[in-house]
């Protein structure tokens, strides 16, 4: 059965992002991302599928923090894919998704080296979910064990559920049927998610209107990311 071709796309409006970190925790909750202890983080092993990069602009007193949420860019030509020797990560042309199959990963970590955004995270040890915390784990998402590379999947499990519901109801996906956890929770609405192939979708509209503000991260590398950023604006009075 021929699935409709979705080009899942996310827009991140840097002007709206307040850096509150709701997306980070929402992602942890949705995707069973293990938390790292203080010691592990000091060893550069922090693990957050979506992170808010904070840069400084200007010098005191005119200095201000700038936030740049970075997650897997779901590249069209992903550098991380072609280096995987076991097809653990491969491309879904029908959805422009960068799929990660945890079960296949043998942990060569080559994808992380070859990933210019450094948004892939490696399980250096087995995750420890203290006894009763396991109740919360999302059964839709595999809990990764030691030696496995993981990354943002655009909440592929939510996409699948939406697709299956649509199939069972015999209708096609509407804009807004699929919303990743981070987008769902973002208070200022800095994150927008949708199917770029659908001209009426929110993302398509936003990109049309905000064209001059939009850019893609490290686009010059030719990775064809599926995440568009909208530059932070400024107003004067």
């Amino acid at each position, binding site marked *: 059965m021929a699935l409709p071709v979705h080009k899942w796309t996310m827009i991140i409006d840097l002007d709206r992002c307040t850096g509150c970190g709701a997306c980070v925790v929402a992602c942890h909750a949705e995707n069973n991302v293990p938390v790292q202890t203080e010691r592990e983080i000091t060893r550069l092993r922090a693990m957050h599928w979506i992170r808010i990069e904070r840069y400084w602009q200007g010098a005191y007193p005119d200095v201000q923090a700038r936030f740049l949420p970075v997650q897997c860019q779901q590249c069209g030509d992903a550098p*991380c894919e*072609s280096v995987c020797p076991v*097809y653990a990560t*491969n*491309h879904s042309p029908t959805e422009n998704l960068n799929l990660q199959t945890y079960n296949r990963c043998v942990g060569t970590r080559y994808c992380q080296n070859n990933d210019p955004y450094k948004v892939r995270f490696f399980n250096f040890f087995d995750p420890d979910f203290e006894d009763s915390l*396991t109740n919360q*784990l999302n*059964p839709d998402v595999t*809990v990764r*064990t030691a030696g496995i590379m993981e990354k943002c999947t655009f909440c592929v499990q939510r996409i699948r559920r939406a697709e299956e519901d649509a199939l069972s109801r015999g209708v096609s996906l509407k804009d807004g049927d699929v919303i990743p956890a981070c987008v769902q929770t973002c208070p200022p609405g800095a994150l927008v998610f949708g199917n770029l192939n659908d001209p009426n979708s929110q993302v398509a509209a936003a990109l049309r209107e905000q064209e001059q503000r939009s850019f893609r991260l490290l686009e010059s590398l030719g990775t064809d990311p599926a995440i568009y950023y909208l530059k932070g604006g400024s107003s004067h009075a």
Partner: protein
Amino acid sequence: MADIHLLGLFNNLEAAADAIDRLHKQGTGDEKILVLSGSPYKPEMLGRPHYHGKVGLASLGGALLGMLLAAFLTVGIFLLYPLIQGGQPLIPIPPSLIVFFEVIMLGMMWAAFTSMLVLSGMPVFKAQPYDPRITEGYIGVQVTLDEKLSGQVEQAFNDAGTMGVKRQALAPAIDLNFRRFWGGGLAVLTIGAVITLLFFYDVLKINFPTNMNEQFSYGYEQGPRLAAPAESVPVQGPDLIAGEPASLPVPSSPNSLQRGKTLFGINCVMCHGAGGTGNGAVGAFFNPKPFNLTSSAVQNLQDNELFLVITQGFGVMPPAAENLSPEERWDVINYVRTLKK
């Protein structure tokens, strides 16, 4: 009379050449003569015909085999499993070329080695006419001919100034060990390959747990069951509102019954049994046993009560609220009604 081997040892080349000349004079054909040496000499130096080996040809064949293997590894795999990676074409030429090169070389050299052994009749484990001094620079000239003629051959050796002559009875023409070695080796390989394949395809199976088969998370339909909180109302809406009729019951239509039958098969049969008589396979594990749905005790219940039981579960019976939408629950109820005897 039987043929025998005569081995004459010489400590320098001229003498050996001389001996061979004399043998030729006696009319001994080159095919009967064999020269043994500790380091390679050109046969011409001893007036022997040049020997043309077939190793080169064999290694060419090996290269061709390698090419086929490479073709399968690259093109074959890419076609069998058309997974896109990194915006590359399905059959990326440059990587394939690398594999082709390496595997061709592999085939060529392995073939060269094997053919070297096979063509020169190695390995040999039977006793052969030989003398340790050959690895001390001596040259051995071995003649294989009828015992009667041994005398004149020894004469020739002595005239050429041999350091000694060895005679040895002719061993059986065919070396069984040789066959056993190659045949046995081949057999072992084949059997091994077959058995491993059986393992690879789980025909033979060692059932050890692999990573991530056991999950920390509590999956659907599993775990110790936790009942839905009493009196709480889900977002999907209350199943029953006190004093109100059940929310939109589905009338018992053939479609509804059909759906109900299917859902019953998926959700209920394992405990309540196909006939609903409470003799399901899993139900056997439980005490008290699952209800007999055909019994009047059940059939006399109101629709609403059945609905609540399905929704919230009853005793060990898990709530189906998560797996069945309200409409589906009504389908099941309609079907259960038909089980009445």
